[in-house]
């Protein structure tokens, strides 16, 4: 069993969400829910994080940010989309500036439903994410050389839509 399962550090990024899921993510860290029981720390720094919690959907402006945070996380990493906005754009799906769920930009491993997602659901989601992490870690052992093949630096500069 990999140690990743015992100490999954998270990073939380608020896409274009309504804050509802964000405060529930934060609430998970607080005494009543206390994610630290599982060894989870909210690091706030992608380079330390194992699980990427995204709330809210992607829009024009934050798409590069989401991508960049994802790329800056070292392997193994998992993405948990919290709330239905992150899953599919939710109620804002039809808004002109919403591109859709997080999976339009980066691969999502776990979807946590709810509007806003309940802390219990987030805990469940993160625990599921831990499972994904363990699998990815095992896969890394098998073929350690194969990591992310894309050169990370090039992705965020593209700005085609603006012109």
């Amino acid at each position, binding site marked *: 069993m990999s140690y990743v399962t015992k100490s999954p550090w998270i990073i939380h990024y608020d896409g274009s969400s309504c804050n509802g899921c964000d405060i529930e993510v934060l609430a998970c860290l607080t005494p009543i829910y206390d994610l630290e029981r599982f060894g989870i720390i909210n690091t706030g*720094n992608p380079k330390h994080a194992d699980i990427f919690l995204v709330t809210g959907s992607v829009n024009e402006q934050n798409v590069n940010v989401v991508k960049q945070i994802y790329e800056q996380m070292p392997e193994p990493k998992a993405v948990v989309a919290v709330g239905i906005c992150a899953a599919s754009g939710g109620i804002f799906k039809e808004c002109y500036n919403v591109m859709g769920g997080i999976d339009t930009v980066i691969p999502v491993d776990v979807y946590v439903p709810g509007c806003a997602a309940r802390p219990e659901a987030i805990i469940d989601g993160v625990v599921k994410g831990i499972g994904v992490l363990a699998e990815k870690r095992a896969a890394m052992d098998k073929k350690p050389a194969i990591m992310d093949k894309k050169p990370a630096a090039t992705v965020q500069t593209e700005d085609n839509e603006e012109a």
Partner: protein
Amino acid sequence: MTIVLFLILFPLIAALTLLVFKTDAARDIIVKASSILIAAASIYLAVQYFDSKEEYFEFGNVTLSTLMMVIEICLAIIIFYLGIKNKKYLASVLAAIQTPVMVWFELNIGHSITVVNNLYADRFSIIMGLIIGVIGTSICWYSIGYMKDFQHHHHEEPDRRPWFFFLMFLFISAMFGIVFSNNLVWLYFFWEITTLCSFFLISYTKTQETINNAFRALIMNLFGGVGFVLAIVVLGRFYGILELNQMIAMGTMGINVVIPASLLAFAGITKAAQMPFNSWLLGAMVAPTPTSALLHSSTMVKAGVFIIVKLSPVLGWNIAGIMVTMVGGITFLLASFAAISQSNAKRVLAYSTAANLGLIAACAGIGTYAAVWAAIMLIIFHAVTKSLLFLCVGTAEHNIGSRDIEDMDGLFGRMPKLATFMIVGIAGMFLAPFGMLISKWAAMKAFIDSGNILLVMIIAFGSAATLFYWTKWLGKMAAIMAKRENIQSNVHKEEWHVLTLLTLLTIIICLIFPMISSLLIVPYLQTVFPSVSVMALSSGNMYIMSAMLALVVLLPLLFNGKSNRRIVPIYMSGANLGDDLTFRGSMQKDVAVSLKNWYMEEYFGEKKMNLIGIIAAAAVLVSTFALLLGGLI
């Protein structure tokens, strides 16, 4: 004795030759050849007098003395004229005071005193001779390349390089004179030559700023000169001696020589740019960098502390000793603080120089065996490391076009070799296994043992400040910035020679310092402090330090720059544009990230620190002399 004479006279000959042969090629050859000769001679001197405790030479005759006097009068006239011409009347006044007094003294009292030993060589002067002979000449060597660039950058101005090299070698000659003269009149003569040389070297570019600063240096040093003259007069008139060793011997035998000692120490304080006279050293930074390296780090200011250290047996818990200790302590603390607020590399170096000289002075002022051990160690390490740093800054300035530390961002990418040298230099100034720290450690221990708790506090706080300003510079050097072009191929090869030499010296001296200590310093100290001999550092600790240094040097070699890790862009809150240098900023603009150091102006502002320091140090000086005068009356 011949070799001592050679060391004093040969640079003079070289200087005059340089004034005659004005082509680049000839100059290159002369400078290189004489540098090698001088360095070799100083090493030979060290070897020759290695075993003997100290040697005194009867040398000199009336003609020589008269010649010196004539030159002195000429110098005074020159200063007087320059002062009038540039409306710096204070300089003229000071010159008009000291030289007539000196001439009067020599014609009246001086005649009647027989000076047996005009020259001498002991282990301390050998150390100084080595510093001047090796480091001083290597700075001249470095100047060959540097001054070519300098001329290139200032092509609109006339080529004054012959004059420059003349002054450099003249200066070296005078410095040798200072460290080998036992006759105080001679010492004074060389002392004045260095003062005037520094004036011309500082005002080399002849802009108004440089002339002003040169005058400031001149005036402050002339103050010291007045002190020196008074000391000679007092010694001659009341004690009937003119020989340095006799004076020190009297002091250690219990005869009160505190008045001449304080006057001489005062002269030392001005020359060593201690507060309240530190501003000349800062002003002198306008000069070409080799000048700064030669005059203001490794030699001229060292003449100031040299005389104080020489006097240290008669200092200690007397009023002269307390004066020197206090002034040194104040300078160390406040100059270290002031260095924090500086971003101009040369000014940082200048403040650091003033601070370290303060520490040396404080050690010498304490006047115990262990303290003087620390002082001499500091002199050695400081001379090597500081000239390395000055020269590095000079090279950097010519290649990146700025001497500001903040513009040296990413120097590691642009000039890796230079940056490495600089890192060694910086580390050498304050980090654990390197020399300066060892000396500081010894100094601290000496302070505690001497029971001077105020100094203990000063060194504790001063070192903290030192740590801050060096490390932030070190950080700038170490920063790896993306997309930096390597431009170090433009550097002259002479510059590389010297930088490499000094870097190696910095490391080697630290490695062999237990040897230096036991072979040179301890024997010297045993002669001047015959009674007690408590070592500042246990030999065990010394070897631990050397071993640690070896480790620090070996580690990078082992590491070898290999890394099989994936290199990723830096974290910029998710707004990195991918090149690690810009981020997507407000208004969707691409903003270049800019990382600068802290300067804490409101805490450690230069003006504030200088004001406090000058007032405090001046108060110490004034009250000391007031007490001395009061004692006389």
